[in-house]
């Protein structure tokens, strides 16, 4: 379990996160929502060690992550970044193989076991048949899946995702988020194969897709965690209207009863 306690962090002269406390247990997907500038990305950067917290603690299974070196931390926490620009000289296999970095020596020599894990990670996001393709020849949705597979190859118990669906069309958004859900809730077969349920924290803008994949929703406003609960608890018109400074209404989706959010 990832445990964040009273975490404050920020940039040079201004603090962005104020005393955030959050627990992400194994087998749980928590969706991190909030308006732009509410501190979602900053929280993910702080957990992954890019930003050093000014106060508070980040622990995994009781171990203080802020005191670990980058290699030890990257064995516990993997990040799926937003795709911006990718370097062209790599195949999918090569990119996913970079996920093994925390487990390799300086030469980056991969073993047969590493190869197995790389292929398994590609298979989990349906990329195996594209292994030798160059990453810059892929669609945005495929590129995002490559970065997910790379994070999976790190074999960390915790996965952080920073608006992974921001550049994807609807079809890829849904399938990507279903993937995310699946990582926290693997099938019995996968558990028998040794795949463990992960703790997943996803920063996301699209409120309407949340209920399909998130077990819990954490709402951030102005660098503070203001509400944590199930999708039905958090996705309330009054709570969201206040957070987003915009009158909103929620309506149940007639097909599955999940709440959908609309501006009034």
């Amino acid at each position: 379990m990832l445990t964040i306690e009273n975490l404050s962090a920020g940039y040079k002269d201004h603090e962005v996160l104020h005393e955030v406390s959050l627990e992400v247990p194994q087998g749980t997907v928590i969706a991190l929502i909030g308006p732009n500038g509410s501190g979602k990305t900053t929280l993910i950067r702080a957990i992954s060690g890019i930003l050093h917290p000014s106060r508070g603690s980040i622990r995994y299974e009781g171990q203080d992550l802020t005191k670990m070196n980058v290699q030890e931390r990257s064995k516990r926490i993997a990040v799926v970044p937003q795709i911006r620009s990718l370097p062209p000289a790599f195949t999918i296999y090569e990119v996913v193989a970079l996920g093994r970095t925390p487990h390799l020596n300086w030469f980056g020599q991969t073993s047969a076991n590493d190869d197995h894990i790389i292929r398994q990670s590609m298979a989990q996001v349906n990329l195996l048949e594209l292994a030798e393709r160059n990453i810059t020849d892929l669609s945005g949705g495929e590129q995002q899946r490559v970065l997910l597979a790379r994070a999976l190859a790190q074999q960390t118990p915790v996965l952080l995702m920073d608006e992974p669906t921001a550049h994807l069309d609807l079809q890829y958004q849904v399938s990507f988020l279903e993937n995310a859900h699946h990582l926290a809730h693997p099938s019995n077969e996968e558990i028998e194969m040794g795949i463990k349920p992960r703790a997943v924290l996803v920063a996301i803008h699209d409120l309407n897709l949340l209920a399909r994949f998130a077990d819990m929703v954490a709402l951030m406003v102005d660098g503070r965690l203001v509400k944590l609960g199930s999708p039905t608890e958090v996705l309330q018109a009054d709570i969201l209207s206040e957070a987003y400074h915009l009158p909103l209404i929620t309506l149940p989706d007639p097909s599955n009863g999940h709440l959908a959010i609309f501006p009034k």
Partner: protein
Amino acid sequence: MKHTARPYLISLIILIAAALLSVLVGSVFIPPATLADLVKSGLLGQPSALDPNGSFAAILLKLRLPRTALLVLVGAALSGSGAAYQGLFRNPLADPFLIGVSSGAGAGAVIAMSIQWPYTTLGLMAVPIAAFSGAMLSVLVVTQLARVGKTIPTTNLILAGVSVSAFASALTSLLMINSTGELRRAIVWLMGGSTLTGWNPVLGALPYVIIGLGVLLFLGHPLNVMQFGDEQAQQLGVPVQRVRMVIIFTATLATSAAVAYAGVIGFVGLVIPHVVRLLWGGDYRRLLPLSMICGASLLLITDVVARAILAPQEIPVGIITALLGAPFFLWVLKRSKSQNYW
């Protein structure tokens, strides 16, 4: 990442051929048969039948071999550090010459030479150390000038490199005008035509080049990861700040040793990593060693050309590399803008 031996085999064969050419060709041509006979008789400890008065042997041991050896070291150093700078700055136009490292090293070397000129044992130590200080200062100034937030845009890097280069070159010229008598020698040296002969420069450059390039060979994998940006590299377990410092230090060390003993030779560090990347891919674990091997070959071949073109007069090799390299630079610049190449 196909880890076949073929690229290494091909580039090593080219290197051996280039080295042979470099040893044989010059104002006096040594026939291959004579070379073979000299090697044989040298191994057996007998006088050579084809070289009764020992003049070929003298040319070979005192002039050609040390020159070839120095060019191998310098070519490997410039090209290997060029590849490392390109990976570090994630910038296709990073070359020790273009980013001002070579000129900085040159200025440092000239400062040392103006004090310790001509060469003494102490001078041989002082020149590379001064060159290294000048080069480190340049690279730090250039990266600070060019940095925008966390990235270094190509244009900024080149502009900062050019201005630091111009400053360092002006400083060098100023010092050379002051140094009486040795002006021509220094000018030739600056154009990348070593006036140094014998084994001393080879032995002087050797430790710096071996340390610099030796450490770089270990950094191929971290450099691969760093192509995705510092933040992702760190999240993948690479201690980015430390790796960056080590790369700047070692690449600059190798470059300054090359400059201190062979002068300012541009574009080798730009051309070779690009050719290697086009031929055998961008995996830095292979790109670094292959660039070093091919850089040595390129410098040997251009040096043969420099010696042959206006024989018996020699042209500084730096002029030839610039004649080849400058158009190549423009081609890369155009390509990197028009295509998703980098």
